[in-house]
């Protein structure tokens, strides 16, 4: 009988062994964590509200730094070095953006911008224009800060400065301030003051502000300067196209200005199409012609305009804003919100809240990343997403990919801000999710070719 017990115990021991061998490997989760295609950057301690409200990155190769802004008027910004090895630092490299005492006052801009400051004694790297305030002298201006903790206050024309300061002092509230720059070694900084319906720019390599003046017949539209953009029309960036949006008009307007060298800019036209046209602007080479293109969002659509074609526009003398007079093939693509299995709710998606042009596949042309912070992800309301469109193909209006977090929470508002960071021959997308005070960096997407699928984008 004892022998029978032995015999009976053999199958049970075998099953037990098999079960044990089939045990779970928790290291697989370590691998998942280490090589997750999406990395969330947590808010710096100094940024308590609205982390990810704005993003600014230097699109130039070798500049993987991104400036993440909090809620304008109440939170500072912090810089993060995303590196080039798909291992973004979790802690900010710099937190002195409106969080220190060296700039007083310091009002964080709604949209900061990278800027090169080389007209001083030496060229400085990794500089961002990010706020209204001052660190030297007696007048407020546009504050820029570099990686070496150099602060520069760019002077603003007195009339505008006083108007801006007066508004601050009168309302005691945040005054909107939008900054943008083109991609060039000596890039041009565009500044929009929508509440003052004014815009200025600093030509590359200079600290002198030039006003962007509308044609004589044109009346400055409301919210002029609510979005600004700068496009390099040549390799040096000295020939550039500046865009200033006034989306709050009944028909949104995007004024275009042409500037070369250090000259003042002249208006070359006004794009106008539908409600909230110009609510977001983006730039980048969409059609791979070597010239940056302009991407404009309105209430429903995102439209890509050829920078090269826009450069053909003559100086404008009339205050007519439409798309009718554009040269042929100026519009590269126009598309609306698309849904996917995971993403839905286009109606309230705030499609077009932010725009970026990113060369996600490294083929030279850019894909358009559109922020939709009201998008529902797996039925999670307002989790937000970034919708990616490859306008180069036969179906430029077709949604190509949706970037979202695998851990969506209600009202994350992912996509309020979108930026691109150059990474090893291709771009990756970063998007702010102020609802959870994080910025998600998407290292992988549909466009990444096999040869570039390594690390977090490994198949």
């Amino acid at each position, binding site marked *: 009988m004892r022998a029978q017990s032995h015999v009976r115990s053999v199958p049970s021991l075998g099953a037990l062994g098999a079960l044990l061998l089939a045990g779970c490997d928790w290291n*697989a*989760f370590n691998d*998942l964590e280490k*090589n*997750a*295609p999406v990395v969330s950057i947590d808010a710096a301690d100094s940024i308590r509200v609205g982390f990810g409200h704005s993003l600014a990155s230097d699109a130039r190769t070798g500049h993987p730094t991104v400036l993440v802004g909090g809620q304008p008027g109440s939170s500072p910004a912090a810089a993060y070095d995303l590196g080039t090895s798909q291992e973004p630092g979790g802690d900010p490299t710099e937190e002195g953006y409106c969080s220190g005492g060296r700039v007083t006052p310091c009002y964080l801009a709604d949209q900061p911008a990278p800027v090169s400051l080389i007209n001083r004694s030496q060229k400085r790297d990794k500089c961002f224009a990010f706020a209204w305030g001052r660190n030297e002298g007696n007048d407020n201006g546009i504050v820029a800060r570099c990686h070496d903790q150099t602060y520069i206050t760019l002077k603003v024309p007195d009339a505008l400065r006083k108007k801006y300061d007066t508004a601050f002092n009168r309302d005691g509230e945040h005054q909107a301030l939008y900054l943008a720059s083109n991609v060039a070694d000596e890039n041009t900084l565009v500044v929009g003051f929508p509440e003052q319906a004014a815009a200025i720019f600093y030509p590359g390599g200079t600290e002198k502000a030039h006003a962007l003046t509308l044609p004589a017949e044109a009346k400055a539209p409301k919210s002029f300067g609510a979005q600004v953009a700068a496009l390099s029309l040549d390799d040096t960036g000295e020939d550039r196209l500046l865009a200033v949006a006034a989306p709050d008009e009944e028909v949104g307007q995007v004024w275009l200005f042409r500037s070369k060298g250090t000259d003042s800019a002249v208006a070359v036209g006004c794009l106008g199409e539908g409600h909230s046209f110009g609510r977001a602007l983006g730039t980048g080479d969409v059609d791979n012609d070597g010239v940056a293109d302009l991407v404009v969002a309105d209430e429903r659509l995102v439209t890509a305009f050829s920078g090269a074609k826009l450069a053909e526009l003559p100086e404008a003398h009339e205050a007519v804003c439409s798309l009718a007079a554009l040269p042929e093939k100026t519009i590269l693509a126009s598309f609306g919100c698309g849904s996917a299995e995971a993403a839905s709710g286009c109606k309230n998606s705030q499609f077009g809240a932010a725009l970026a042009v990113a060369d996600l596949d490294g083929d030279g042309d850019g894909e358009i990343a559109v922020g939709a912070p009201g998008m529902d992800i797996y039925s999670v309301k307002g989790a937000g997403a970034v919708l990616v469109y490859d306008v180069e193909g036969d179906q430029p209006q077709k949604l190509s990919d949706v970037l979202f977090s695998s*851990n969506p929470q209600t009202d994350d508002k992912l996509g309020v801000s979108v930026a691109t960071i150059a990474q090893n021959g291709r771009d990756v997308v970063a998007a702010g999710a102020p609802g959870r005070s994080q910025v998600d960096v998407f290292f*992988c997407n549909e466009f990444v070719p096999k040869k570039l699928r390594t690390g977090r984008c490994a198949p």
Partner: protein
Amino acid sequence: MLWPASGLAGGGGKQLERIRERMEQGLALFVAGKAGDAVKEFESGYAEYPYSAFLFNAGVCYEKLGKGPEALAKYRQYLQVDPNAPDKQDVERRIARLEAEGAPVAGAPPPPPPPTEDIDQQSMRSLVVIETEPAGAPVRVFRPKSESAPAYSRTLPNPDWEEIVTTTAPTSLSLSVGLYHIVIDKFKDFNGSDTQLHVSPGHVHQFKANLSQGVFMAFLRVSSNVRGAHLWLDTNDTHKPEWGTAPYGELVPVGDHSIVVQAPGFEPTSSKVTLESGEHRELQTTLVRVGYGFIRVDAGDAPRATVTLDGKLQGEWSQGGPALEVRASAGSHRLLVESDGRKDFEGSVQVPKGQILPVHLRMIPKYPRGAAWTQAIISAALLGTGAVLGSQSNEIKKILDDERAQGSLTASDPRITKGRWFAIGADVGFAGGAVLAGFATWNFIKDPLPESSKTEDPAVEFDDPLKRRPVALRPSSPPTQSKPVQMAEDEGTPWQFGAAARSDYLGISVGGQF
């Protein structure tokens, strides 16, 4: 010697058997060369039953031992207690010879050595018991004067025969070996009768004459290979009182008789015999055991147990109750005994033919498995938890893999941590469960206690409803063999039985007709 035989005749059958045993045992020892032991047997026989034959035979033994004075004393005592012994002259001659040997005269030639035949087996005296019905009949005993004497005649004078004894029945005589003729004279209104007698050495001969019938009865002695087998004479109804138990002999009327021999555990046999007047018939029966037997099971200190034989439940045994007897055909059987909380016993048992095999079981308590069960349950719980957690972990892993493939997996996704902990929990569960399962398995297998076992006592005979217990005798060597034969008795105690004293088979040697 004449000895009042009323004690023997009047219900003294058993006493006569004991006298016979004494006499034959002494003779057997003498024949076996153990004259010293034979002396003790005869002397103690005389002390118990004062028949002079014992004294004479003791004297012969002393002579054999070379102890003349002791022999002389016995012979003198013999004549003293039986002054009219029929062999008085022979005894006196022995006395004279011994006296001469004990007091030699100076210059005289040494006395001749005693004749060898004087101290051999043939010189032994036998006891002859003569009874009549009714008692009081005159008895005369004749002996031939020489070996060439003609046969005794009822009608003619017998000058070659001498009368050596005149007495009345019942009587007992001490006679030497030889031929005799016993005459019962007419008595009152009864006829006389006579019979011839060959006296064997060292035996007890019994004669009984039924004078009302005018003939001697026949003597029937029935023996069997089963000592104590029950005997019925002239009836097949075994509910009637038995005639006797084997070996048993008795004077019976002449004619046809049927004998039924029966013993528990044996197939009964029936025999028929036809006896003639004065005939002595020895009837040897052989009983064959029945083809079945019993096992008598007791389960020791187990409170109760069920007994299964060859897969068939036979009954339940309870402590304090009687042993469970199970009948089965003779041969090998598969015995299974089960008791709650104790290890089963399973083994073979050899059921004897016509006997009961006492089987004593030692039912060993089962080794406690409480710890093993506890470990097994906890192990199962751990394994189950591990399986659940593992399943959950795998499910999460699969989802995360899918999300990673589509590029949405976030490094800070809490499901990664959750899945990791589930995996760790699963592995801990598996490991803990495996360890405990190992312990449980070991504790299930481990059993330091011995298995239940059985012991068997020697088989015993069936219980005898007649409150006796016949015992089968082993086949033995012929009766003349002097070597003692060991025989089995019902209680298993061996006892010595001299070959010359095999009264079971020899019985009383002679019957007679008058």
